[in-house]
């Protein structure tokens, strides 16, 4: 059954990695001589202690990871990372409630970017950096990061990869998963570093550039400023961030082929990329025209605000350069629809992903044809390859679950006393790992006004959405824990 010893052993190594990241942040606390140092040191001690205990518990483990173990490890890795990750916020007193601290950390690791903080600028640099760091680690996945840096998983890494990777199908850039992980992280690091340089060139200071680049590449959306990107009021910075949000929304395998192999063809022939480009283009055009007609903005400004918001929401980043709640209401609904879509599978984004929308729209189109030609054999082709019926039904099941969870979450949040449009947008935003919602949870507000119960539900939805529903929900099915 479940190989508890091996799970403990792997968890132990994961805790050490998290402790390593905390140590990195504590250097910042030392450098800036701020009050959060003792909180970091205590967190490091607790996390390392937990790592030692888990490693001891996992001594002499049978080195085997089954499929079930993979799902358990991935889900609990995310939960425990958030539990230990919230310690600096909580212990330093900057977020005095456990609910809020856990919410903030889960929102970080899942790259949601929804915050309960009402005065972000007051946080010390160490904590601000840790907030951005959680998103960067979570962007490509905690376990995926570990696969890249440590060969601890051995044979089981394939199972873990399958449990954490996003999208209905998984591409590999190299036959060995460890090497694949290294290349993907290289691309990720490259994107982050390039953006840092470009932001500094645009006049942002070093610390802010690093923090914003970490959260852009992760399509997370945590900013070091309460008013997000609008604070900088710089068209250059907005365009740079738009570009990098867009790039981070592309399948990283395609980015690898593009940047490291110079293979343009694969990217531009990719069905999912067509959909991504098409939807972003359409939504931007629609929003731009609406803004030109209904707002005081000029053409350039309308376009800039429109493309920033559309790309930010479709890549589920959640940066804000303008409060769309001040726009006409049709755009609010449009923003919610964009949050559903998401960008490409195999990127750092959340949401449904374009590949699923592409497959479903072709299935639907085939249904129409099928009525006129009842005997026709109608394949669904993606990237010129016929999609198997197993993949098709997996996509349909995913979509059904996604929509079902939105409705259930909506009702549950309203039971806890959240308003109609707030509940609706919080669920979509949490499940899609986006960040802002509408109404009182809109871009210019934080989510601190939500009741505690609603915050826990929202945190759960973020995790469920980040791990693409099945990985987490599987643990709640009774069959998973049965021996047969």
């Amino acid at each position: 059954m479940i190989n508890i010893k091996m799970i403990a052993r792997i968890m132990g190594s994961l805790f050490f990695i998290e402790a390593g990241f905390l140590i990195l942040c504590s250097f910042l606390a030392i450098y800036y001589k701020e009050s959060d140092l003792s909180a970091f040191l205590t967190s490091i001690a607790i996390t390392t202690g937990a790592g030692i205990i888990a490693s001891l518990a996992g001594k002499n483990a049978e080195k085997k990871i089954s499929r079930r173990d993979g799902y358990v490890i991935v889900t609990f890795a995310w939960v425990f990372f958030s539990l230990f990750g919230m310690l600096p916020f909580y212990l330093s007193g900057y977020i005095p409630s456990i609910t809020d601290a856990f919410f903030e950390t889960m929102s970080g690791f899942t790259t949601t970017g929804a915050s309960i903080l009402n005065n972000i600028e007051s946080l010390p640099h160490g904590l601000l950096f840790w907030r951005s760091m959680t998103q960067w680690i979570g962007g490509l996945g905690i376990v995926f990061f570990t696969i890249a840096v440590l060969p601890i998983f051995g044979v089981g890494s394939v199972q873990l990869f399958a449990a954490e990777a996003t999208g209905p199908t998984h591409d590999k850039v190299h036959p060995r998963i460890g090497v694949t992980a290294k290349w993907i992280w290289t691309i990720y690091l490259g994107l982050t570093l390039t953006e840092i340089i470009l932001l500094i060139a645009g006049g942002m200071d070093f610390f802010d550039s690093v923090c914003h680049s970490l959260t852009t590449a992760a399509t997370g959306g945590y900013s070091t400023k309460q008013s997000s990107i609008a604070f900088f009021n710089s068209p250059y910075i907005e365009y740079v961030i738009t570009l990098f949000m867009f790039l981070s929304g592309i399948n990283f395998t395609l980015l690898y082929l593009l940047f490291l192999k110079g293979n343009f063809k694969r990217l531009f022939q990719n069905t999912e990329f067509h959909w991504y480009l098409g939807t972003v283009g359409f939504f931007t055009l629609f929003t731009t025209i609406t803004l030109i007609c209904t707002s005081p903005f000029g053409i350039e400004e309308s376009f800039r605000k429109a493309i920033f918001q559309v790309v930010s929401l479709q890549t589920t980043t959640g940066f804000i350069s303008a409060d769309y709640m001040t726009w006409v209401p049709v755009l609010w609904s449009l923003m919610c629809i964009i949050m559903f879509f998401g960008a490409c599978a195999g990127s750092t984004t959340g949401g449904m992903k374009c590949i699923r929308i592409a497959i479903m729209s072709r299935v639907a189109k085939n249904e129409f044809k099928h009525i006129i030609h009842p005997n026709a054999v109608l394949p669904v082709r993606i990237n010129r390859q016929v999609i198997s019926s197993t993949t098709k039904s997996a996509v349909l099941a995913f979509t059904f679950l996604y929509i079902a969870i939105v409705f259930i979450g909506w009702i549950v949040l309203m039971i806890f006393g959240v308003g109609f449009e707030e509940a609706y947008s919080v669920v979509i935003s949490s499940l899609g790992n986006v960040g802002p919602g509408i109404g009182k949870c809109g871009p210019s507000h934080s989510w601190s006004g939500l009741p505690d119960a609603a915050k826990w539900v929202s945190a759960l939805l973020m995790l469920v959405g980040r791990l693409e529903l099945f990985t987490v929900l599987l643990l709640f099915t009774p069959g998973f824990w049965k021996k047969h």
Partner: protein
Amino acid sequence: MKIIIAGAGAVGTHLAKLLSDEKQDIILMDEDEEKLSKLDSNFDLMTVNASPTSISGLKNAGVAGADLFIGVMPEESRNMTACMLATNMGAKKTVARIDNYEYLLPKHKEFFSQLGVHSLIYPEMLAAKDIVDAIKMSWIRQWWEFCGGALVLIGTKMRETAEILNVPLHELGGRNIPFHIVAIKRGNETIIPRGDDTIKLHDIVYFTTTKKYIPYIRKIAGKETYPDVRNVMIMGGSRIAVRTTQYVPDYMQVKIIENDINRCNRLTEVVDDKVMIINGDGRDMDLLMEEGLKNTEAFVALTDNSETNILACLAAKRMGVTKTVAEVENIDYISMAESLDIGTVINKKMIAASHIYQMMLDADVSNVKCLTFANADVAEFTVKNGSRITKCAVKDAGLPKGATIGGLIRNGDGILVTGNTVIQPNDHVVVFCLGMMIKKIEKFFN
């Protein structure tokens, strides 16, 4: 090492799993997505859903940088085509699985090399050779020769008559014996024995020895009552059966029993006159008795159906046949078949896979045989100058647990190895190890 395997059939998947556990970069190609999807999500390898004979498909799989290209699709001609394409597109070495005996003739080797097919593998022929080895010595379950027979490996099952039961091996060793016990198979477990292990009843014991001491081993194993094989009955006229008749020594009489009359007619065209072909159901006991099963010493079941083969062998054993050989294509059945007392189990896939595995080992290994029963590997190394193993006596060399040196061949003579032997450069060393540890052990000899 980047290895492309074309064809996710039985041999291809078995090989892919084997090599991916070995930390090789494996790319598996097949047209059938369903065959690939299972492997893709469970093993550390990459799958490419494309025809291995399409140029764009091969390009996609990255054939230009491949160190080895293995064509193991069902059709011989496609394997050849794929290998030729692969070589021309940059693959360093290619192996094709074939069905035609002619291609294997040494005089054609150069021709195929020029075409771009560097090695050929014919699983049916390898299986036939194994069968003949097994029936030549009916009391032996496994038989393997090293360096043209200077050293032999024998696997045999211990019955009540054996003389070496329940004696610790270090006591046996004290008598200065002319053999070395390299592995013991007990139930489902394989043991690479150490001094304090003992041999128990029903163990399968693997000895290395030189040819002149084989009668001695037969004596201590209590197998002197086993008759020599003169009459062989083969059930099922498959390709392996045809190849087997080719390798059988002249003194043996072979009968093939085949159910399909058309196949029987075809068989008459491809086998020698001395082979008698009988049209009938091999499961029909009356027919078998009529054809003289009582006087038959070896019964070989080679139908397409593993279950039929196992059951037919059991029936034959009950009728008094001393040696039975069954082809079992279902890998999970192998240990079961062995516990049911079937003399030798033949598995085409494992034979083919271990043969290819041997090709890709970079050390000077000329013979690797995967012992079907024992889950152990046998490898032959040529010791290089200055390698670790030559620096001290074998017992101090620190070979990993689960590995033992079975013997060595120096200037053509087989020598058995004890703890105090010092291995010299250019010796051929025969090593036994559990699982696929060969890569680890290679380091000692290079």
